[in-house]
């Protein structure tokens, strides 16, 4: 093929298929072979077993589609799905692929509709996916049309199983007829406690969506959030203003499988330098904001925690930092790319000052976030560094080699736990 563009010529993907049986040289997960971030074959297996597999994927908030007929588009793994509220108020999640010839029947990120109509031949689907109408199904003037044995019921938009909890919507594919584990047991008791801290049943109000395409393997995002160690070093902004510091009381907890985890931290009062800050070249004692409104933080949850970052396998991060709340959804876009979709929200009961505060604190996060930008930049050079020579392995020995909960930040325990579960699911 003659390449259509100079740029593309350089894009030759060096799919380096690995002999999976020998990929992981050691037991345990204190080493992670770099091939897991670069191998196209492993990525295909991840899509199949993890994203399109038996678990539960986050697909949105009920507050995004409050009215009957409201819908949004998103993806479970690489599969496009419509999240839609039916006439009776129930949420359905439908594969966005026409049963006739495969078109995306829905093209709008958000909207409201009475039914989904494919543009090509106007096959029309109900909000629960049922095929309602096939134009000219009976032919015209006695000619043509669909065969008599055509069964419309066998040609719906494929529905996914759906579960919601306190306004958060999860979905999953049916794999061999298995209905999937109930959402609550999937999350597990330990995780539910933290999940319910933010999603406590109060009505949510969506503030907006941010989307960024990160040029890195999706697992690097999960590692990042499961890694309290980096937060105290990379994020000068956090550290300097005491939003997260190595010497703040912190915990890392995992569910029993290791796939989910939560990182919590409790902001102390003083910004003083001390033993720990001495080890942080990130700490800048002299830094003062000209506009202190940004650090006007109001305590709104029970307990001492001021930061709670929860990661839910395989595609969700729930963020509470200062008064900014958001879900972050991961959509894999190839072995070396993923979309990070941030849905910032507050509560319907927020007063105007709180709403303004949440919007102000949103400056910390998203594609231009004063904190999160450090992470998107770091993931870029992580992927580039690894791709240049994927023959090695990451060293995950901070806080030992185990996968237990920890009550400090000097640990990579949650990442090791994550890869423990990953190895089992991927059979690596």
């Amino acid at each position, binding site marked *: 093929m003659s390449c259509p563009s100079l740029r593309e010529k350089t894009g030759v993907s060096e799919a380096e298929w690995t002999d999976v049986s020998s990929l992981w040289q050691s037991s345990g997960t204190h080493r992670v072979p770099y091939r897991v971030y670069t191998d196209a074959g492993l990525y295909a297996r991840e899509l199949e077993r993890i994203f399109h597999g038996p678990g539960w994927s986050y697909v949105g908030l009920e507050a995004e589609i409050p009215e009957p007929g409201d819908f949004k588009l998103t993806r479970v793994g690489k599969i496009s799905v419509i999240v839609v509220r039916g006439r009776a108020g129930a949420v359905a999640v439908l594969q966005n692929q026409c049963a006739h010839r495969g078109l995306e029947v829905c093209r709008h*990120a958000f909207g409201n509709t009475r039914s989904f109509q494919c543009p090509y031949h106007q096959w029309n689907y109900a909000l629960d996916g049922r095929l309602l109408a096939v134009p000219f199904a009976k032919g015209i003037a006695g000619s043509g049309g669909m065969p008599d044995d055509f069964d419309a019921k066998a040609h719906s938009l494929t529905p996914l199983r759906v579960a919601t909890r306190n306004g958060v919507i999860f979905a999953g594919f049916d794999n061999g007829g298995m209905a999937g584990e109930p959402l609550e047991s999937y999350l597990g008791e330990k995780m539910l406690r933290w999940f319910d801290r933010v999603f406590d049943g109060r009505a949510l109000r*969506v503030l907006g969506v941010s989307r960024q395409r990160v040029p890195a393997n999706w697992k690097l995002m999960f590692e990042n959030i499961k890694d309290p160690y980096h937060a105290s070093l990379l994020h000068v902004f956090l550290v300097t203003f005491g939003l997260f510091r190595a010497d703040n009381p912190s915990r890392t907890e995992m569910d029993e499988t290791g796939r989910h985890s939560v990182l919590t931290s409790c902001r102390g009062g003083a910004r003083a330098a001390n033993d720990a800050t001495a080890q942080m070249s990130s700490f800048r004692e002299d830094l003062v904001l000209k*506009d202190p409104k*940004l650090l006007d933080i109001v305590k709104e949850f029970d307990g001492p925690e001021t930061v709670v970052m929860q990661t839910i396998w395989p595609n969700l991060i729930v963020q509470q930092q200062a008064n900014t709340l958001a879900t972050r959804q991961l959509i894999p876009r190839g072995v070396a790319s993923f979309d990070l979709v941030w849905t910032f929200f507050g509560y319907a009961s927020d007063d105007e000052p709180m709403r303004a505060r949440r919007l102000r604190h949103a*400056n910390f996060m998203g594609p231009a976030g004063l904190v999160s930008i*450090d992470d998107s930049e770091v993931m870029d050079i992580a992927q580039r560094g690894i791709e240049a020579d994927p023959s090695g392995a990451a060293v995950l020995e901070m806080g030992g080699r185990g996968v237990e909960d920890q009550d400090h930040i000097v640990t990579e325990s949650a990442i090791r736990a994550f890869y423990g579960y990953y190895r089992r699911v991927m059979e690596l």
Partner: protein
Amino acid sequence: MTDGARGSEAAPELSRTELEDLYAEYAEYLDEGPLERWPTLFAEQAVYRIVTRENFERDLPLAMILCEGRSSIEDRVYAIANTAFTLPRRTRHLISGIRANRDPSEATVDWMVTANFAVFETLEERHTECHATGRYQDRLTRSAKGKLLFLSKLAICDSALVPNSLVTPL
């Protein structure tokens, strides 16, 4: 022959070159630096926001960058330069279709200005790419000394999807 902004009778004091120069300086301070000069183009109470077309059209208030006042703009500049970790990059702002209208809602000497922008970004070992395109919806005012300043600036990005990071303001 005249060179007035539209409605030149009503706003005789805004020359074409003055208007063009404001946007030229705006681009210069972001692209060439020093970034510290960029806030000097804003009035003290200026609001600066970058939003996506997607949120804008859905009436959702979220901004990717929200600065309420010049102090806040200065904090953002300081953070970009001093606390944020960012890869070496260079931006280039192309701005066209700058059009000023006298603000009908104001008794003071204010203008509503709209323009189209395209911002390109260049990273190490990579080719220059289009990073964002969109629309400015701005309000201009004059300082006591007569300097033209942004009273508010809203950058609406066409794409909902940022190519990795949004480091340099649009």
